[in-house]
Structures are given as structure tokens and as C-alpha cells.
């Protein structure tokens, strides 16, 4: 056998070995998998509605003094994973248990927290109608009818389309998506995948996550918080309701914030959706762009409670999975002025 006839197959084997991944490039980039658990308390809310008082025949009782229907306040406790807002999950070199009275990533000299990687569970996409601006997430509702029922149940505000006509069926929302976005399937609209959070045996809700192409270092702490919808309309603080073309009264700098008596301010969206089609001219909101770099700015905003982890698990091995638990640890806004700002924003 000649030398050539021996070397050629060997060379081929070496090349095959290299191409099949035996070669360690020394990269620290990994897809990281884990589970987020959200305490049941974070998905529980007392809903207060004004309902007409009904007589024994099921008709509204009329006040004889003014001839108008009599209303009563009805409180209902709702436990539903659709109350789980966007969960922001980041990997940080270190977190502090009491940075702001709750666990928060350690900040650098410029106030930034320098996440190594991160992801969200639930995203803001184009909601198709203005009435859903900053109120609806991906991976929560199974279909548009469920979405409509949810908002009718939770909020005492009628759902209307962009022409201020009542929305009575989910199909109207779907049709708005098709008309505006030129989509042909619900998959493209990305709002009706079903709720990614399922109830576990403890009665809490959990969902798997994957952080794609994470810059991994052994010892990173996995930290997360949940932005809960506000109680009146269901807005999320980590959504930027108005883009560049419509002003938002919320302060956008520390200077502006201090002028309004608070230290909290927000940063405009990185990818705001703006609708400017025929008679539709409005901003439909978009995700704030610095939530994982400056989470504290968003965590204490709003009149709804936001929820954060008590412990941040340390990730030593990228091939292992971790479980991040957002337990019964609500962040209660302690600055009354924040609520005032939010009220103006609405």
C-alpha cells in the first residue's frame, strides 16, 4: 500500500472529526435552559367591579328616586396565570439581597447592572387595536375570544376598536391584525400561543425558558422580576406606551423625575410600534429597552405590585438547568408621587 493511499483516508477522518464538533473553540456561548416559578400570590387579584343589582326575575333594580338602575360593588378574587405579566430574567455577576429593599443586581459606577445575558417570558408585540396598547403579552392567551373575555372580566372598561366601536368577538381583534399587519395566520400575530405558565403541584405557576446564545461564566446569578399589570386598566410599566411621535408625561431623565418629586424615570422603547394607516394614527407601545440594565427604574413603578426573586440561584455549569423562583415577595411602591405620575400617563 502506498503512503498516499494511507494518508488520504486518515486526512479525511481528521477533517470529519474537526467538522463534527470535536474541536473545542473555547467559546463561552451557551444556550441555557431552566424554569421560572411564579408564586400563586402573584397570579391572584381581587377584582372590584360595579354591577347592576338584579331583582328576583333577573332584571335590574331601579332606584325609584331617580329612575336609574342601582349598582353595587362586587369583589371577586381571581387566580389566573394570565395575571402573570412579563417576567424579566437576567444573568448577573452578583445580586444584592437588599439593594432597594429587595434583591437587585449589583450596579456599576454608572448605575448599570451589566447583564451577561437574559430573556423575557411574555413579549410585547403589535396588539392590533389601540385599546390593547401595553396591556397584552405574547404567550398568555389561547385565542382572541379568551383574550376579550379576560379583559371584560378583569377591567371595568369596554373594549373598543380604533373607530371606537365595541369589540364583541375575538374575531374583530384578529381581523384588525390581518388588516393592519397583512398577516394571514395567528402564528404570525404571535399573541395567541396559549399560556406558557402552567400550574405545578405546589399550586404555583411555572414555565420553561431558554436563554439563547448566552455569554456564560461560572458563578453567574440568575435573577428575575415580574411586571404585574396595573389594577385599573392592566397596563405594564415595562411597556413604553407612546413612541417618539407622541409624548409620554412620565419623566425620561433623573432631572425630569426630580422635578416631579421622584427619582424614578423610564427610558423610551427600543422598538416601539407606531400605527399610521389611513384613519389610524397612534402609538401601540413597545418594550422598554433597558429593563435588564436598569431594572430598579421599572420595579417600583406603577400602582400594581411587581414581584421579584428572594434568592438568585448561582449557575455553575451551563449544561445544568436552574429554577428561578419569583416567590411571594411583592414590591410595593413607596413613593406616592409615582402613582400620580402614572395616573397622568393614563
Amino acid at each position, binding site marked *: 500500500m502506498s503512503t498516499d493511499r494511507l494518508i488520504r483516508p486518515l486526512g479525511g477522518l481528521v477533517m470529519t472529526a474537526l467538522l463534527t464538533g470535536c474541536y473545542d473553540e473555547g467559546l463561552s456561548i451557551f444556550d441555557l435552559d431552566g424554569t421560572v416559578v411564579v408564586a400563586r400570590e402573584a397570579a391572584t387579584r381581587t377584582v372590584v367591579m360595579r354591577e347592576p343589582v338584579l331583582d328576583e326575575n333577573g332584571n335590574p333594580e331601579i332606584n325609584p328616586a331617580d329612575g336609574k338602575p342601582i349598582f353595587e360593588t362586587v369583589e371577586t378574587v381571581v387566580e389566573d396565570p394570565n395575571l402573570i405579566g412579563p417576567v424579566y430574567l437576567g444573568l448577573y455577576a452578583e445580586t444584592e439581597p437588599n439593594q432597594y429593599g429587595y434583591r437587585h443586581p449589583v450596579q456599576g459606577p*454608572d448605575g448599570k447592572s451589566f447583564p451577561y445575558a437574559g430573556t423575557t417570558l411574555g413579549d410585547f408585540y403589535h396588539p392590533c387595536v389601540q385599546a390593547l396598547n401595553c396591556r397584552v403579552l405574547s404567550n398568555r392567551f389561547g385565542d382572541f375570544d379568551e383574550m376579550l373575555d379576560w379583559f371584560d372580566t378583569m377591567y371595568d372598561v369596554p373594549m373598543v376598536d380604533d373607530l371606537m366601536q365595541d369589540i364583541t368577538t375575538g374575531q374583530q381583534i384578529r381581523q384588525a391584525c390581518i388588516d393592519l399587519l397583512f398577516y394571514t395566520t395567528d402564528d404570525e400575530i404571535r399573541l395567541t400561543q396559549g399560556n406558557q405558565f402552567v400550574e405545578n403541584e405546589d399550586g404555583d405557576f411555572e414555565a420553561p425558558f431558554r436563554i439563547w446564545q448566552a455569554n456564560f461564566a461560572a458563578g453567574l446569578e440568575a435573577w428575575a422580576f415580574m411586571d404585574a399589570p396595573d389594577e385599573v386598566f392592566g397596563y405594564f410599566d415595562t411597556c413604553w406606551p407612546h413612541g417618539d411621535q407622541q409624548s409620554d408625561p412620565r419623566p425620561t431623565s433623573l432631572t425630569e423625575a426630580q422635578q416631579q418629586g421622584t427619582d424614578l424615570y423610564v427610558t423610551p422603547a427600543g422598538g416601539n410600534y407606531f400605527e399610521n394607516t389611513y384613519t389610524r394614527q397612534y402609538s401601540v407601545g413597545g418594550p422598554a429597552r433597558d429593563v435588564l440594565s436598569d431594572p430598579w427604574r421599572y420595579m417600583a413603578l406603577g400602582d400594581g405590585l411587581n414581584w421579584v426573586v428572594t434568592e438568585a440561584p448561582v449557575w455553575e455549569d451551563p449544561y445544568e438547568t436552574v429554577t428561578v423562583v419569583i416567590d411571594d415577595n411583592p414590591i410595593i411602591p413607596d413613593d406616592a408621587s409615582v402613582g400620580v405620575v402614572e395616573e397622568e400617563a393614563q
Partner: protein
Amino acid sequence: MMVSPRNLMVLAAVGMTGCMSFPNLGQQPIDGVPGVAHFGTLTPATVASYEDAQNRAVFGEVGPTGTSFAGGFTFDFVGTGEQVCIWVDPEIVTWNSYLGAIGDLVPAEDGAPGSAFAYPDNIGDDGDIDLRVGQSVFYTGTVGTDLEEASARIGNFLVDITDSLGNTIPSDLDLCSGTAALGGRGVPELCTIDTIEGVSYTAAMQAFSVPLDDFRLSYGFLFVEGGCDELAALYSEFAGNKFYTKECVLQGEGLIPGSESGAAAAQAGFPTPSWIGGEAPVIPGSRDFESNFCDDNIDLQTFCVTEAADVEARGLRCAWGEPANEDEGTTRCFCGDPSTLPRLAD
């Protein structure tokens, strides 16, 4: 001449070492014009009116450094715990020519002008300055005036920090990053800084580009107590609360090249050449030009049409992109060459 492969390899090796300096790269320095200037430690001025602000404005010139490093100017200040505003305005103004519907470009029958920016800009007489401010301890440059200290160099506030995992993260500690200290050619940049008492700060204004006609970039800057909003409000009050752009707030930064330093600036120990307030040698017509540009109530095209007619009446032509010399039949024009626009409708 043949270049031998050996010589080519030597050249390549030298080029690849990466440690060569290129002292003659770019435009040569101009005699008497610093590439890098330092104004020392300044105290913010207290201004109560727009006239006050104009009188406290500092003007100067920078030119090419003659090296591969960009030039600019710096000053230091000590924080008082209060806000200060830095407002810098590079020579002179820039706009994009209007290229909309042709009908808008044609003056109406009654002589009313078309679009405000129908006339092109003289792109040869504008420069750009980028404003950065941070704590002096983080400044990476070398303060000084390069006419006196060859090592003087404009820097930034980009520093590496090491997190608790031992990894290095580049962090931009420029306090003006992401604020109104962003602007293109000829556009003022401004920044309000919330100072910490007793902490030293450095303001670094990098000459991103110098005018192509003479490579001398004149500028004006204001360093005042309070926020930049308050400074702008002084102009607004002065102008009768009409619409204007930030170009209005500091006017007269277009300076006659080669002028002697002002007496007040020399007494203050400022680098040569520089001027304070009314002693600045403003190019004739420059203020009028800026006023027309920045005032939304005045049409810039009227100024440009008038300028072109005046130049023609004097038997001269505009010196776009080169120094004007009336002996050679050229004069300085603030507006650009209309023949560079698309042809108007017949």
C-alpha cells in the same frame, strides 16, 4: 522600480506591528490654532437673562491636531451639589436641502418663498463637536493645550470595570451619554449635570469634524448654573416665547479666522485664540444668518435668495469649500450652491 518580495514582507511586518504612530496623518496643524485647548478650571456663571448669557459665552477656535487623534477643547469644574449646564455650539449651522414636491420649491406668484430649506446649505463652513462630561478621575485624555504641551489629547470616559467574577466590562461613564448631548454637524450639544459637591469634573468637547473650507473650527460655549432647560427658557423669554431651535440660544460662533484673542479672555488665562462675550470677532452677517435659521417664524430661503442676489450684484461668486478671497473674486456665502439641487419644474 521593482519591489522585492523580501521588502514587501518587511513592510507588511512593520505594518502589522500595530505600534506605529502616524504623526502626519490627516490635515497639518495651523499656526496659532490649537488642535487641543484647555480652559482650566471654570466656575459656572450665574445668568439671569439672555443678555447675561451672551455676555458670559466663551468663544474659541481649534484646528487639526496633525496627528491621527481628534482635537477639541476641555475645561474642568468642581461640583457644588447643584445642577450645571454646558452648552456648546460649533460653527455654524447645517441643514438638509428640501427635496419634496417641486411645487413647494417654486416661490408663489406674490413672491412668497417656498420651503424653508429649499436652498442648499454651504456644507464647507460647518464643523461638529461632540460633548462629553464626567468625573475627572475617569477621564482618559490628557488635559492641556497642545501648542504648549505636546501630550495634550482629547479623551473620553470609557473605562473598564471588573465585576465580582473577575471579568472586565467596558463602561461609559460619560454623564451626558444618551441625553441631548447628541447632535450632528453644526448642531449645538448641551447637557445638564447633577453635580456632587467637591467632586472634580471634566468637560471634553471633541472636534468630530472641522470645516472643509479652512480647517478651522470656531465655537462658542456656555457654562452656567442650573439646568439647560432654564438657559433655553431665558432665550424663549427674550424672543417672546415664539418657536425657535436650540441653535438660537448661543449665537455668533462663526468667527473671523486669524483674529487676535480678546482682552478679557487673555486676562482670564484662556488659551489663544479665545474671546468672551461681545469681544468675539463675529463674521459679518453670521448672526443674521443664524437668526434666520433658528427662528421658525422666518423663512431661511428669503435670506439665501437675498444673499445670492447681493453676491451677484457685487460681481463676486461664492467660495464654497475654500477660503474666500475678494481679490480673486470670491466671497463667503452662508448658503450653498442652488445648482446642486434637482432641476426645478419649467
